């Protein structure tokens, strides 16, 4: 396969563009997504010029309104990709996401299909403070009826987004504001990535680290450092938080006998708690050390650089935790 290096942003755009070309029912809807602005993170740049403003619908600042619009259009067979600029703004559309999109199929006894993708982004690292830097994925994983994807690389971003667009179930597709400029190999040829299949991003013997989104990159960097110290880390990226590939995680933990779960979201009732519970149940007897998490402490994201750095997960915090765990210091 011909492979080139492209950014996460370009990968996402390619996924949308290819699906828009393939299926005329696919359309984009959201705030500030049309050219010349092309989206506040420029993910949709060029698409309104190519496909026109009927396929790339720029909306007023009206999250409840346009997410509801996307839900309704999906209910009659259109395939909207809605963009919520910051995951923090999902609160404005929460009824449409949680009570409508997630529930309609079930409460209609299976009559409805909701082929909806909501793209959004979260995460800290840009001094965006408490209302523009959250990681709210656990809310959606906790809501039956939704699927949740959280890609960490350009390859995963493209393959997962194409799948998300083709699925007939509503998908919350969570990007990271600091991943858009990251680069990685992406084949020229068409491919998709199924939901519910984790990717072992690095193999190792001593400790399994389950990490999501940008913390996958931090963990891979930490694993390099630890390798030089003689600690071999296996990095598992679930890629989709629901469906969750528990089998791959459990198999890895059975091999390494240690588990660290990493995410940027605050620790309390975060996604990591679910991973820990699954492993506690399915790999009981294989785990030789406390199961620990590396997450943000349960406070809002602070503004000042040094405050944000203090709470934000980073490579060093991950390396420290794994090192101490493997050395039996925890």
């Amino acid at each position: 396969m011909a492979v080139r290096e492209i950014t996460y942003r370009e990968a996402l755009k390619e996924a949308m563009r290819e699906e828009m070309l393939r299926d005329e029912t696919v359309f984009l809807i959201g705030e500030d997504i049309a050219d010349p602005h092309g989206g506040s993170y420029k993910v949709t740049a060029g698409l309104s010029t190519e496909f026109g403003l009927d396929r790339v619908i720029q909306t007023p600042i009206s999250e409840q309104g346009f997410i509801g619009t996307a839900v309704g259009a999906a209910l009659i067979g259109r395939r909207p990709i809605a963009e919520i600029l910051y995951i923090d703004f999902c609160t404005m559309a929460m009824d449409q996401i949680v009570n409508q999109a997630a529930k309609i199929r079930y409460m209609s006894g299976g009559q409805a299909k909701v082929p909806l993708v909501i793209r959004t982004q979260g995460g800290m690292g840009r001094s965006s403070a408490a209302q523009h830097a959250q990681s709210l994925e656990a809310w959606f994983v906790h809501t039956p009826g939704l699927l949740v994807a959280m890609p960490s690389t350009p390859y995963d971003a493209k393959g997962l987004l194409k799948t998300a667009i083709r699925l007939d179930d509503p998908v919350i597709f969570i990007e990271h504001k600091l991943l858009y400029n990251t680069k990685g190999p992406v084949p020229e040829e068409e491919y998709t990535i199924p939901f519910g299949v984790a990717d072992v991003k690095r193999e190792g013997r001593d400790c399994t680290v389950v990490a999501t989104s940008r913390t996958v990159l931090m963990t891979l960097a930490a694993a390099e450092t630890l390798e030089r110290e003689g600690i071999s880390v296996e990095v598992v990226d679930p890629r989709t938080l629901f469906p969750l590939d528990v089998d791959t995680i459990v198999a890895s933990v059975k091999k390494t006998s240690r588990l660290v779960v990493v995410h940027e979201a605050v620790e309390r009732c975060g996604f990591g708690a679910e991973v820990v519970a699954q492993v506690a149940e399915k790999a009981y007897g294989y785990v030789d050390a406390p199961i620990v998490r590396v997450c943000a402490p349960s406070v809002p994201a602070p503004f000042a650089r040094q405050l944000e750095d203090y709470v934000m997960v980073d490579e060093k915090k991950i390396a420290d935790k794994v090192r101490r765990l493997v050395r039996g210091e925890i």
Partner: protein
Amino acid sequence: MNAKNADTTVETPPEDLTREQLLGMYRRMRLIRGFEDTAKERFEAGEIAGFLHLSQGQEAVPVGVCSALGPRDYITSTHRGHGDVIAKGCEVKRMFAELYGRATGYCKGKGGSMHIADFSQGIIGATGIVSGSLPTSVGIGLGIKQRGGDEVVVCFFGDGATAEGGFHEALNLASLWQVPVIFVCQNNLYGLSQPWEKTAYKCDLVARVATYHIPGECVDGMDVIAVHRAARRAVERARSGGGPGFIEAKTYRFLGHYVGDPALYMPAEEREAWRKRDAIVKLRGQLLAWGYLTEAEDEAMGAEVAAELQAGVEYAKASPLAAPETALEELYVHFDYLGNPR
């Protein structure tokens, strides 16, 4: 009341509606009333669980509106939606089956009274979240427009929804995109216990909606012909690309908010006065006066409706209960509830 179209008089039969149409509307209204009365009775007998929000008194609104729709048109509805879905074509037997938690119910026992849907008839479902269906209705309208269809969507909601943000966002977008959505407010003067006139400074909905440049009418919701005519105007306009419309139908909920609500907040004189304006009684009087219906035919129709309801309840009771483990089914198209692909 600012009801423009209370132009039906007992003396003259309308020229724009045939006897068959009028009798059909009359029968539908009676069927809804009968459904609600039967549901109440069965609920009070302990046979039906959950919440039951009944619509006795409001029948002319859904029947007047839905009689202006075609089979491919869509509706969305609310917690008080039995009348809306019967008016669009739901069968009472499958509705009873739903209320009784049977596998043969429209939603196989997963939706219940508040969420009856029949996608095959464009009945996209009822929401229990006040105003929740307004934004989704805009999306249905947008979808129709995208595929170049000539269907319209009717979005039914209560007066209570008009203070929600979703109402305003939906109106703004519907107007901006000129989608074929007709917003129908069934103003029964209460949102639970809150009187309508205490929900806004100067309650003039048509004027409020007009600020979004959506044409609207306030009609007497106790006059099915007036409702029908307003709906026909809005449907014709929306169908021919004229964009969204709005109808405020002034009506009344004869009973409490739900079965069991003593409705202490509804003054007795007010209830009495509205009871006297019963839309079914009014239409019956008109049909008799116009020679469209005889007393004997009326009685026969009553017996037929009663038999349909009776058969509906029997069908429900004879149907198998939805099996308990089906509670885990039909959450996703592509996965089981645990996330295993199917």
